[in-house]
């Protein structure tokens, strides 16, 4: 009989807790330009390494290098920078508005702007995203009006959702942005269904599913992968690994020594990891996956390796569970500063123009905020009607809801 020790349960822990020195030495970063770019019709088993490495384009000197570089023009990159700056300025103003009591809640994108802004530019009009709460960049980069976003955040009289949704849970069919659910991972499989429908109808439109690292533990994530794989759905399965699911570090949902991207391999889905703070890399990888989907080659799974610099939401205090300086130690840098540096190296941008652009964008955001607040904030000014509570539960109001509406005095 084999002698053995008493069993003990393994509970993963992050490398450092508050008070400690940030340490990302365990995050293996591939050199920019070092990861190959396969053809889009590659078999998943031939690119297994891409699920364990990190695709990067921008090097430390701000140069775009390697096989994933060169997919964007100067103008497109300048637009990308502007979109990320706009999202950051929007975030700052809305965070402040929440602190001023103008709304109940806000979730910012600080440090993750490249993921959604660059991804949107790889899609076409008519494609559909099934986003989480941290992809407002999909709307900003598609020129959805900021005033409308603010009206939604304030739940005011002009809120397109009539005060029914939590702030930041936007919806816009026209801009390919499916109505956000607060229930995690449910929409991952819905995106696969949308993509299957497009294939059933021999359409050319594709879908994009979004999830955070923590929510990959939900069963709907696995349902989505099995359906996407089974029917070769034209869908891009995005995982934003920003290291933290509220206070729980990514090692809890991930487990073991694998990567989130590697989960696609068991389903035969090509899987890539990309530097989520590198606008060029995100765009190049997203475009690769979009082309695969549009050529009827099936789904692609992409893990964006990034860092959530801000709190999870305005109800969260990250200093309680991670070192305060951890975000500064994040080895992949700041997506805005990296793209700015690249554009300066490229000779199409400068510190002066950047400062000027910041001021212009701030004016634009403040003007949008002024307009939105003219329609009211959560506790002041114009509100949606109480009648709106009862409308739209069904296409046609059934008698029992009509009776309740009348009882409420409307």
């Amino acid at each position, binding site marked *: 009989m084999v002698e053995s020790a008493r069993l003990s349960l393994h509970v993963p822990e992050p490398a450092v807790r508050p008070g400690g020195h940030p340490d990302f030495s365990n995050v293996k970063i591939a050199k920019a330009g070092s990861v190959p770019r396969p053809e889009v019709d590659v078999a998943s088993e031939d690119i297994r390494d891409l699920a364990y490495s990190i695709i990067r384009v921008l090097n430390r000197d701000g140069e775009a290098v390697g096989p994933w570089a060169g997919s964007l023009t100067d103008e497109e990159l300048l637009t990308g920078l502007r979109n990320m700056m706009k999202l950051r300025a929007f975030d700052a103003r809305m965070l402040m508005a929440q602190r001023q009591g103008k709304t109940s809640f806000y979730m910012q994108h600080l440090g993750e702007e490249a993921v959604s802004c660059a991804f949107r530019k790889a899609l076409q009009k008519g494609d*559909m995203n*099934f986003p989480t709460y941290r992809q407002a960049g999909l709307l900003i980069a598609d020129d959805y009006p900021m005033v409308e976003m603010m009206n939604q955040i304030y739940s005011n009289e002009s809120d*397109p*959702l*009539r005060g*029914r*949704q939590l702030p930041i*849970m936007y*919806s*816009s*069919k026209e801009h390919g942005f*499916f*109505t956000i*659910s607060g*229930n995690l991972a*449910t*929409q*991952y*499989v*819905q*995106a*696969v*269904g*949308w*993509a*299957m*429908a*497009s*294939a*059933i*109808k021999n359409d050319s439109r594709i*879908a994009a599913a979004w999830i955070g690292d923590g929510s990959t533990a939900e*069963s*709907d994530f696995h*349902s*989505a992968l*099995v*359906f996407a794989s*089974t029917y070769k759905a034209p869908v891009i399965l995005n995982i934003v690994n920003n290291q933290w699911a509220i206070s729980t570090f990514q090692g809890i949902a991930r487990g073991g020594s694998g990567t989130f991207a590697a989960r696609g391999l068991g389903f035969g889905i090509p899987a890539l990891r990309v530097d989520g703070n590198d606008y060029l890399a995100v765009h190049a990888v997203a475009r690769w996956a979009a082309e695969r989907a549009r050529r009827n080659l099936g789904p692609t799974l992409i893990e964006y390796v990034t860092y959530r610099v801000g709190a999870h939401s305005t109800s969260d205090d990250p200093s309680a569970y991670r070192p305060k300086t951890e975000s500064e130690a994040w080895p992949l840098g700041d997506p805005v500063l990296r793209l700015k540096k690249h554009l300066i190296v490229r000779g199409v941008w400068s510190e002066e123009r950047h400062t000027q652009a910041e001021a212009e964008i701030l004016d634009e955001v403040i003007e949008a905020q002024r307009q939105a607040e003219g329609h009211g904030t959560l506790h002041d000014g114009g509100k949606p009607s109480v009648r709106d509570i009862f409308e*739209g*539960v*069904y*296409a046609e109001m*059934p*008698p*029992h*809801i009509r009776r309740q509406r009348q009882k409420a005095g409307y």
Partner: protein
Amino acid sequence: MARMTMIEAVRSAMDVSMARDDNVVVFGEDVGYFGGVFRCTQGLQAKYGKTRCFDTPISESGIVGTAIGMAAYGLKPCVEIQFADYMYPAYDQLTQEAARIRYRSNGDFTCPIVVRMPTGGGIFGGQTHSQSPEALFTHVCGLKVVVPSNPYDAKGLLIAAIEDPDPVMFLEPKRLYNGPFDGHHERPVTPWSKHDLGEVPEGHFTIPIGKAEIRRTGSAVTVVAYGTMVHVALAAAEDAGIDAEVIDLRSLLPLDLDTIVKSVTKTGRCVVVHEATLTSGFGAEVVSLVQEHCFYHLEAPVVRVAGWDTPYPHAQEWDYFPGPGRVGRALAEVMEA
């Protein structure tokens, strides 16, 4: 007109709907090549192709979740959950997603899906093949809940459900799939071919969701039932020789309150019968509405007859199932009060 079982009527409803509208798709576990474990989808894949009727992985949440996405795209998915008992992994998708998409997006996105599921007992299915989860759906604003009691209604209601712009839970009483059931388990099931309601038009027709039907007129007491219990209630009224009015609800949400109130106002007495467990069952909702709207017309307390508050047993199925004996005793109780 043709004679149909409820299985054939359900199949015919999908067939008619798929023929009329290219956007109608049918999928679920075993529904494609094989035609479903109850054969409700038999022949549909051969007729419409495997991209409109197909098998899925065993993942109820995946089935309903993909259906929601397809509906957002513009299709009209009619999916099958193999037994209502297996619906729970999809409950999150149904209650927090399908039910609310129209509301939370202010109509920007909608969810016209139908979720079919065989429900109820009477076939020795034990705990995991006999449940009646309708009350779990009627509590959810945004869903519609339909339970047919015969082939004619099954077809008309299912076509209406597929054409409905909102998500519809379509619960098919499996005890009624092949024939009506008079509640006496020792007697053989009569085929639908000998029953008026087994006569079903072959083409397109609909029955409005939200309208009850009076199956037996009477003036002494109102029996409110749906699904298999409609047949049990009719048998009980016959056996007891009571002049009972039997209402078949057909739709639980929306509910045809007017028909219930009109009947109870007339009779002054009411018995509510369902197969699901008693506590917090749909009967509680009916009783509340009856006391709220008919209190001054009531001559006796309203009585509920339901499954016991236990899991559905296998060997003691007929002691669990509310049969005409139990319904008869309830009728006697309200008549004596």
